[in-house]
């Protein structure tokens, strides 16, 4: 073996080693995070932990209000984001002319929206939803502090706004996967454009849209920045009943327990437990999304 080949072989090994260790590094980081959370959180997990409110200045008890508030806000978020997102995607993909200036503008806006940091959405929610819309509603109703204050409604709408691009992109992708020949087939039978969308296109796009929904739920569950000014509360002695109530939620609860605690030794295990619950939730949601996606792919390839 001559000198040059040897050098090349060593270089080759070096590159495999470098790329491989990058993968290892990521796996190691993930393992450390998961390990810490598992070990720290597992001890605090119990049925009571999941079903009881915090007690004794939040140093004991469970996290039930945070789970409840999270589910409440996520449901409101979905009610807002899914119809608007799906409608936008249907307009962009089925109705709008692709060479039209407005279409390009909307597409660009959607992509930019996806790149905005979540804290900016939080501040936008505070300024737009709470002060402008909420405050305006209060003034015109002659009230004070009903709508113009942080609450689940505004927090959910802020989350919805943040997640709008994800739903739009997922839906558009799902619409793109529906063969053009089927649209033509329906139109040639005398179906209107909307009937074609409603009865032929959308039914096939639903799994793709659902994937987007699941991703949005798991992202909404994890984000703290958009809700910390718009509705999340440090501690509430009662469960929220109306969309105009404030709420506790898992992500914010973890933040509070680790940074704002009066007795850090007592609250860290609770924060660990809450983190474990949140991680388990988002992980399982992501797995559900993957399953739905792969199942649709299989069905589509079987169909043709």
């Amino acid at each position, binding site marked *: 073996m001559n000198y040059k080949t040897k050098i090349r072989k060593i270089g080759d090994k070096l590159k495999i080693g470098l790329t491989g260790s990058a993968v290892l590094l990521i796996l190691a980081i993930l393992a450390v995070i998961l390990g810490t959370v598992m070990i720290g959180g597992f001890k605090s997990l119990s049925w009571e932990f999941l079903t009881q409110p915090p007690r004794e200045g939040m140093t004991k008890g469970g996290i039930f209000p945070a789970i409840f508030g999270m589910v409440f806000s996520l449901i409101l978020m979905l009610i807002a984001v899914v119809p608007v997102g799906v409608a936008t995607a249907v307009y962009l993909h089925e109705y709008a*002319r*692709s*060479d039209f200036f407005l279409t390009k503008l909307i597409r660009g806006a959607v992509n930019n929206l996806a790149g905005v940091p979540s804290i900016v959405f939080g501040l936008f929610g505070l300024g737009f939803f709470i002060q402008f819309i909420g405050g305006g509603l209060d003034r015109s109703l002659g009230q004070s502090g009903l709508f113009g204050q942080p609450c689940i409604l505004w927090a959910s709408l802020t989350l919805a706004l943040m997640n709008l691009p994800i739903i739009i992109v997922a839906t558009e992708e799902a619409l793109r996967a529906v*063969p053009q*020949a*089927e649209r*033509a*087939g*329906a*139109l*040639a*039978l*005398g*179906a*209107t454009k909307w*009937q074609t969308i409603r*009865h*032929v296109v959308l039914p*096939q796009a639903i799994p793709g849209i659902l994937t987007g929904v699941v991703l949005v739920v798991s992202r909404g569950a994890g984000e703290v920045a958009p809700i910390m000014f718009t509705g999340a509360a440090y501690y509430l002695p009662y469960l929220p009943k109306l969309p105009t109530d404030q709420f506790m939620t898992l992500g914010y609860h973890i933040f509070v327990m680790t940074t704002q605690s009066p007795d850090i030794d007592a609250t860290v295990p609770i924060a660990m437990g809450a983190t474990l619950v949140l991680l388990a939730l988002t992980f399982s949601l992501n797995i559900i999304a993957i399953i739905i996606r792969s199942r649709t792919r299989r069905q589509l390839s*079987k*169909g*043709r």
Partner: protein
Amino acid sequence: METRENRLEIIDFSLYYHRTKALEEISMDIPEKKVTAIIGPSGCGKSTLLRSINRMNELIEGVTTEGEILLDGENIYHKNIDVVELRRKVGMVFQRPNPFPKSIYENVAFGLRMGEKAYSKGRLEEVVERSLKEAAIWDEVKDRLQRSAMELSGGQQQRVCIARALAVEPEVILMDEPASALDPIATAKIEELIFKLKEKYTIVIVTHNMQQAARVSDQTAFLMLGKLIEYGDTATIFTSPQNKTTEEYITGRFG
């Protein structure tokens, strides 16, 4: 007034993709309850002409038309014509079978369900059975109407698509190379079917297969580069064409 036996009349019809002229002043009368074949080399505009008859070209951005196409004496490009209504009168079968990923039953019932009239379950079942029988596929699928149409073979799917078009009781059926994606046996079945269907329907078929055109059609139109070169009885076109280009094409010297 004379009685009108030509259901479809194409008069000085031109079509543009943006500024390119894809069809040039085409005029032809398509007789009722006959099979009219449109032949010509690839890209000659035969599919475009076919798709002009049910205005499917409108789905493509940048298409404009000139001239008229009359169906029962009415210009289908007139602004008062409802394109949805038109497409119920002019059905279409595509090059590749394109059933919906729904049951066989739902595929055939689709057109009726999309219409304004509401059909009872019994009436719907009747129409589905009649259409599948007309499309000569009833015996093969009668025991599995609720199974997905995607499970059928290509030839069966194409006949379901024909049944789907028949269910809305069109006057004209457009067929865009309906057998080009099928094997010889499935092709023979489709051709047999076309022969039967012309008792009730006016059929316009685009094909690049000249034997097929000779076998199934009564009238043949030869198109080249967007122009109608020759149009007449299939027998005449194939045995003693008037135009030299037509002769060269049908004897296989190009195309």
